[in-house]
């Protein structure tokens, strides 16, 4: 066992394990924090990441009851974000089931480990469709096959099938699960991915293997694909070049918002 008993796998940690076992080891086993710049120019990268986080916050505020117009009024200082918001208002919630849960996390167990998925939006009607919506602020829309192979797609559908029954009124048949990636920077274009019982079994086997490999591993080799090191903060430790160019980065909102946010909650308690 390389990890503590209560370790939870998320899409980020699973993607790290799949991309580069060495990165997984450094980040989650050794818990080594390495504050190198992810992408250059750093300030532009920061701006884009913060824009992505702010967009997600807007959606959350709207789903908590704030009128879309009020939120649009607050975007006077960021025309790009205002355009994304406009795209969301047009099609963001169109055709989705009415039972909606924003920013909800579900967890289940597999191979003796916890799996956690944090959803932008779950839209489910009892006995009807169960839709996972994930808003992306990426500048380019990737190929469907790329999305299909992402750990996020694999994990989110699997966890919903296993742990979302209480939101659905009973077990969710995999065929009722759909995942929608909504690209607001591309005018709200959607790419949908279905699910099936066969796919669930395949995903389960894949996740089981990945988890077992991590648990059993005696060595965590560095990836041979050096392009995966471009935006990794450990690249100086592994002697794998300089920070990648922002132009080559599409998935900046995958850099966790938490990395950019202090735990004000705890700080407020202590400072006072």
């Amino acid at each position, binding site marked *: 066992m390389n990890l503590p008993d209560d370790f939870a796998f998320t899409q980020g940690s699973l993607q790290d394990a799949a991309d580069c076992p060495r990165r997984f080891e450094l980040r989650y086993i050794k818990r080594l924090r390495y*504050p190198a710049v992810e992408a250059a120019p750093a300030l532009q990268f920061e701006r884009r990441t913060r824009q992505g986080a702010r967009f997600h916050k807007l959606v959350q505020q709207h789903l908590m009851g704030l009128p879309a117009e009020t939120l649009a009024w607050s975007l006077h200082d960021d025309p790009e974000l205002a355009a994304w918001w406009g795209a969301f208002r047009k099609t963001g919630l169109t055709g989705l089931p009415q039972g909606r849960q924003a920013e909800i996390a*579900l*967890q289940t*167990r597999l191979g003796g480990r916890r799996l956690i998925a944090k959803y932008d939006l779950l839209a489910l009607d009892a006995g009807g469709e169960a839709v996972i919506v994930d808003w992306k602020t990426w500048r380019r829309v990737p190929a469907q096959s790329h999305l299909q192979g992402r750990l996020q797609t694999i994990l989110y559908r699997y966890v919903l099938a296993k742990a979302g*029954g209480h*939101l659905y009124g009973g077990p969710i048949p995999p065929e009722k699960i759909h995942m929608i990636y909504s690209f607001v920077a591309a005018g709200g274009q959607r790419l949908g991915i279905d699910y099936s019982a066969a796919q669930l079994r395949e995903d389960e086997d894949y996740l089981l293997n990945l988890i077992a490999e991590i648990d059993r591993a005696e060595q965590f080799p560095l990836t041979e694909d050096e392009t995966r090191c471009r935006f990794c903060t450990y690249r100086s430790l592994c002697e794998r070049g300089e920070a990648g160019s922002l132009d080559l980065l599409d998935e900046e909102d995958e850099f966790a918002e938490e990395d950019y946010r202090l735990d004000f909650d705890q700080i*407020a308690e202590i400072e006072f």
Partner: protein
Amino acid sequence: MSAKLQIPLTAEQAAIAAAAPDRKIWLEGIAGSGKTSAGIGRLLRLLEQGIPAESILIYVPQRSLAQPYLQALRQHSGYSGGQVAVQTIGGLSLQMVEAFWFLIAERAGFGHPQDLPNFLSLESVQYFMTKVIEPLVNQRDYFNSVRIERARLYSQIVDNMNKAAVVGFRIEQIAPRLKSALPGGVEQGHIYDDAQTCALEFRQYCLANNLLDFSLQLEVFLDQVWNLPQARAHVRRRYRHLIVDNVEEDNPASHRILADLLRMCQSALVIYDSDAGFRRFLGADPENARGLQDLCDSQAQFADSKVMSVAGRALGRALAGQLGAPFVTGLDESAEDDPQPSLITEAHRYHPQMVDWAADRIDELVNRQGVSPREIVVMAPFMSDVLRFALVEGLMARDIRARSHRPSRALRDEPAARALLTFARLAHPRWSMTPAEFDVAFAVMTAIDGLDLIRAKLLTEMLYRGGRLLPFSDVKSEAMQDRITYELGARYDRLQTWLNNYIEGAPTEALDIFFRQLFGEVLSRPGFGFHDNSDAGNISMNLVDSARNFRWSLEFVRRYEDQTDLGRDYLDMVDRGVIADFYLRDWIADNDDCVLIAPAYTFLLGNRAVDYQFWLNIGSEGWARRLYQPLTHPHVLSLGWRADRTWTDDDEAAMNRQTLGRLVLALTRRCRKEIYLGYSELSESGHEQRGLLLEAIHGLLRRSAAKNINGKAHV
């Protein structure tokens, strides 16, 4: 959805856990009586019954106090479903103000309701406080008779504002309250007036610039957001089941929200720790918390400790009794119980002897008796750098891991941070903050793997000229080049070249980005001091977080007014000792198998029991006496204070005794086996020590001796 979720419970705990999911229960008992275990049992039972986890709220005064609940959930093998929420008043108010900001900002009086709010951390608060009120303080000669550091003065003004917010009075009432209760003459009255003027100025500045310190965040939440139907509907929908722990450590603002939550929710368990309330200096109000009892359907009481030994229980009772504590509950056992078996004491003349004694005893426990270091805590009322260093070194010499925990640790004291800050000065000559030669030598030594301080000093003596580093080739003496070695010279050159290229290029104003670039491009590379160095990585990350948070706050205000250089201002704040934010990730290390070295209250706020406690400096008055705070007062600014009363010396003495009584009870209730008392006649600074705790312990030992009990005491 969920498998059987169970933990072993006693009958009384099981009864709490199994109560119907529409019951609201008040549970009271002493520390260690199993209340939190009952709470965990309740949580698991709710989940087992199919209650959605996301509808359950665990509400605590401090986030780390929810860890036992989260840990229990994490370790359960069968659970599938949502996640329970954990909230504190700080977290809830921040999230709600942020979420509903655009509905309330204008009404709340903010200057730019169309823009986002900016929530300030402590260091940002200190920065803006300094910026806003320092001109006033200088021009009008405020606080001229108060002889403490400015940063501490300002933190007391912040403290006053926070107390007003959590208790629920306007900040205009701060000075009248203090003046009427603490008559200290005209001069003292002026000091309170000045403190209030500063608080009001700061509040106006925050409102004008969309800044929210903790006090304003809380006021806006209570007065504005909490009155919004949308906000209440959101909370009502979201949290149907409530588990509140350590409610006695929470403040009246929290109690007000909890009262509403109790009315809204379907079920609740409210847990109250008798004889506690240690966070009074943070606004905790255990008396006010009791009002929530009336909103519950039933009451339960746990009387027996599941932690303390008979002797430990007797010790707590005897010491609290010696201090005349009137509030002690659950201590009506036989007065004949002997406290001595739980107590090991030894007197020393000098402070270092006491530290050595403590290290020897811990060595005996860990290395001879096989006690887990995690089961040992070493406490003192204050943990000075000297004491902390001596203890850590003493334990390391005995091959024992220790970790020290101080809530406010200045980053600038850490070598990695010191080096980064020195390089920041070097890299930004236009700030005119040229570092001293020794600081440069220290930074170069820290940065270059294999370079010792002597050679680092030689390098800087030869190559640090006019605020810049010259290349290694400028060392003309071959003997000196050999002494430094070409390998280290090459590393030095890489650092020097990077810095000079940075200066020649376009230096960023974002100091955090500078730190990250220097870290990633030089210091973390092979051959440099931060390479594969987890301490340096963590400290650097903390510094980056601190500088980035500071930059964001200032960039935000720049939209409304001209600002000076961000990076320079940050360094200036560091020099003034303002950088002291506390980061949660330091708490995460609490599971490590190390001896904990901490101030007594820090240990208590972690809310866990250990087998062995070491109380050092028992002669110190700090065990009972509160800090000198000339601008504020925790009792006068509390909810229960009557406006017509005056705080007297007798009140102060009684409060000291009561505070110490609570403290010793709390500590003994968190000790399973033995307490070691370390005493030295002379304190760290060479003064004789005769504090209240020592007096109480002397009394206890005299009584024991009179009963002719054989013990191990040697005081």
